[in-house]
C-alpha cells in the first residue's frame, strides 16, 4: 500500500522535473514584466472616474445639438436645458413643483417604510404572522402598482390621498421582502449561542434578530427610495397642477423638450441623492462591517 503511493508520488513529480531539466528556459511563456504576474481582475477606479460615461454622453449630445444633427423638437441641447432650468429656478416655478413632488414622494416613502417594516417584523418573527402575511405580500408584489390606479381612484378619489397611498403601497414591498428575508435568514449559530447563554426572547429580538436584519432593511430602503420617485411620475399625470411629473407632461403638450430634460435631470439627481443619503446612513449604522476591510 505504502510502496504504491510512493510510486504514484514519484510519477507525479517526474513530469515537471523532466520538463525543467530538458527544456531551455526560453521555451516558457515570457512573464509580462519582471517577476510580475498578470493582473487578472481589473483594479479599483480612481475617484471620479465613474463620471467618464455621463460626461462623454453630455458632450456628444451637446455637439449633436450644435451641429444641428439633433433637432430641439426631438431633444433639447443640454445647454438649453441648463438655461431653462435656471430660469424656472429663478421664477420660483421649479421650487414649487419640486416641493409638491418631494412632499408626495417622501410622505409615501415614510408610510410605506413603516408598513413594510411592521409587516416584516410580524411575518419574520412569528409563524402565524408569516402564514397570514407573506402570501398576501407575494401576491401584491406580482401586481404592478399602476394596475391598482383604477381601484385606488374609485376608493380614494383623485386627490393627494390616492397618490400617497399608491406610493406607499409600492414602497412597502421592497422593504418587506428584504427585511423579512434577513429575519428569516438569521444565523442559526447565533440563535444557538443566544440559547446557550440563556437569553430571553425579548432580549434575543433586541440584541440578535433586529441587528442581524438591519443590513437587509437597508437594502430594501435603497430600493424603496428610488421606487417612490418612479411611482410618482405616473401618478402626477392624474389630476394635479403641481409636481415635476405634471411639469413634464405639460411640456410634452407644448413640445418643450428642454423642460422635459430638466425634469429628467431632477429625477436623476433625486434618485442618486437619495441613494447616496441611504448609503451614508447605512455606512454609519453598520460601521462594524468596515473592520472587514482593514
Amino acid at each position, binding site marked *: 500500500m505504502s510502496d504504491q503511493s510512493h510510486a504514484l508520488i514519484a510519477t507525479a513529480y517526474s513530469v515537471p522535473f523532466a520538463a525543467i531539466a530538458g527544456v531551455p528556459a526560453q521555451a516558457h511563456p515570457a512573464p509580462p514584466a519582471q517577476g510580475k504576474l498578470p493582473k487578472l481582475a481589473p483594479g479599483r477606479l480612481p475617484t471620479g472616474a465613474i463620471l467618464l460615461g455621463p460626461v462623454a454622453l453630455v458632450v456628444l449630445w451637446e455637439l449633436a445639438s450644435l451641429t444641428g444633427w439633433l433637432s430641439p423638437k426631438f431633444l433639447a441641447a443640454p445647454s438649453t436645458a441648463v438655461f431653462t432650468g435656471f430660469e424656472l429656478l429663478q421664477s420660483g416655478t421649479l421650487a414649487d413643483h419640486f416641493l409638491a413632488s418631494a412632499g408626495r414622494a417622501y410622505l409615501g416613502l415614510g408610510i410605506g417604510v413603516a408598513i413594510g417594516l411592521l409587516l416584516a417584523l410580524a411575518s419574520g418573527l412569528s409563524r402565524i404572522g408569516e402564514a397570514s402575511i407573506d402570501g398576501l405580500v407575494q401576491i401584491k408584489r406580482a401586481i404592478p402598482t399602476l394596475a391598482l390606479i383604477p381601484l385606488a381612484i374609485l376608493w380614494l378619489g383623485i386627490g393627494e390621498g390616492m397618490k400617497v397611498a399608491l406610493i406607499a403601497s409600492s414602497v412597502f414591498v421592497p422593504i418587506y421582502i428584504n427585511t423579512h428575508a434577513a429575519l428569516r435568514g438569521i444565523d442559526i449559530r447565533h440563535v444557538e*449561542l443566544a440559547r446557550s*447563554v440563556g437569553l430571553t426572547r425579548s432580549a434575543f429580538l433586541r440584541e440578535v434578530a433586529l441587528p442581524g436584519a438591519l443590513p437587509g432593511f437597508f437594502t430594501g430602503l435603497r430600493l424603496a427610495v428610488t421606487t417612490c420617485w418612479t411611482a410618482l411620475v405616473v401618478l402626477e399625470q392624474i389630476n394635479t397642477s403641481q409636481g415635476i411629473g405634471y411639469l413634464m407632461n405639460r411640456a410634452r403638450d407644448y413640445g418643450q423638450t428642454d423642460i422635459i430634460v430638466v425634469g429628467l435631470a431632477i429625477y436623476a439627481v433625486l434618485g442618486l441623492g437619495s441613494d447616496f443619503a441611504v448609503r451614508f446612513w447605512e455606512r454609519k449604522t453598520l460601521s*462594524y462591517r468596515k473592520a472587514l476591510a482593514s
Partner: protein
Amino acid sequence: MNASAHPLHLPKADAPAVSLRDVTRRFSGRSVLGPVSLDFAAGEFVALIGKSGSGKSTLLRAIAGLDDGVEGDGTLTVPADRSVLFQDSRLLPWKSVLQNVVFGLHAADSNARGRQALADVGLSGREDAWPNALSGGEQQRVALARSLVRQPRLLLADEPFGALDALTRIRMHDLLFRLIRQHRPTVLLVTHDVDEAIKLADRVLVIDEGRITLDQPVSLAHPRARHPGFAALRGELLAALGVTDPI
C-alpha cells in the same frame, strides 16, 4: 422557549457534576449515540476524542441541551450554569468585543468582570474593537473570555481550537489550562487531536460509532508534552481510534 425534548436535571450536592444514564440519540431513525452512561466529577477535565461522525459532538450537544428536535432517550443531570465554547468564535459582529464577552450576562458588575476576563485572555485594550477587526486566534480568545466570565460549573468545548493554526493552538492550550485552574469548572473538551487531549485532560474518553470504547484516566504530571509516558499513552489512544503504527 426553554421547553426541551430532553429534560435536563440539576445535580444534587456531593453528586457527580454531570451524570448520564442510558443516553441515546437518533437522526431520522439511525442511531448516532449510545446508550451512554457516564459520570463526571466536579472539577474534572474530560477530553472526548473520536473520528468524524463518531457521535462526539452529538454527545456534547446533548449535555449542552442544544439538541431539541433530535430523537432520543435517557437521563441527563447537568448543572444549570454551563457555558459552551464553539469551534467558531460566534461573536456577534454588531457588538463590540466587551459587549460580546458580557452577552447575556446580567450582573451589576458585568462590565468590570468582562474587562477582567478580557485581561485574563490577554486582550486588554481591545474592549471597544469590532470582532471583525480581530484575528481568528483573538476572536477565539474573546469566545473563551465569554465562556469563563460566567464562572460556569460546566464548560463544554466543542473542538474549540480546531480552526486555529498550530502555533495559536499551542498558546490556547496553555491559556485554557491556566484559566481553568482559577475556577475549576468541570470541563468536557471534544477534540480529534489526541495530543491536545493528553496535554490537558484528567481523563480521556474515546468514542466510536456512538459508544464509549475507552475510558482512560491520565495521571501524568504536568507539563506533559515531554513526559516519558506521553508517547505510550498517545499510541494507546491512537490504537483505540484505529490508527496503528503512526510515523
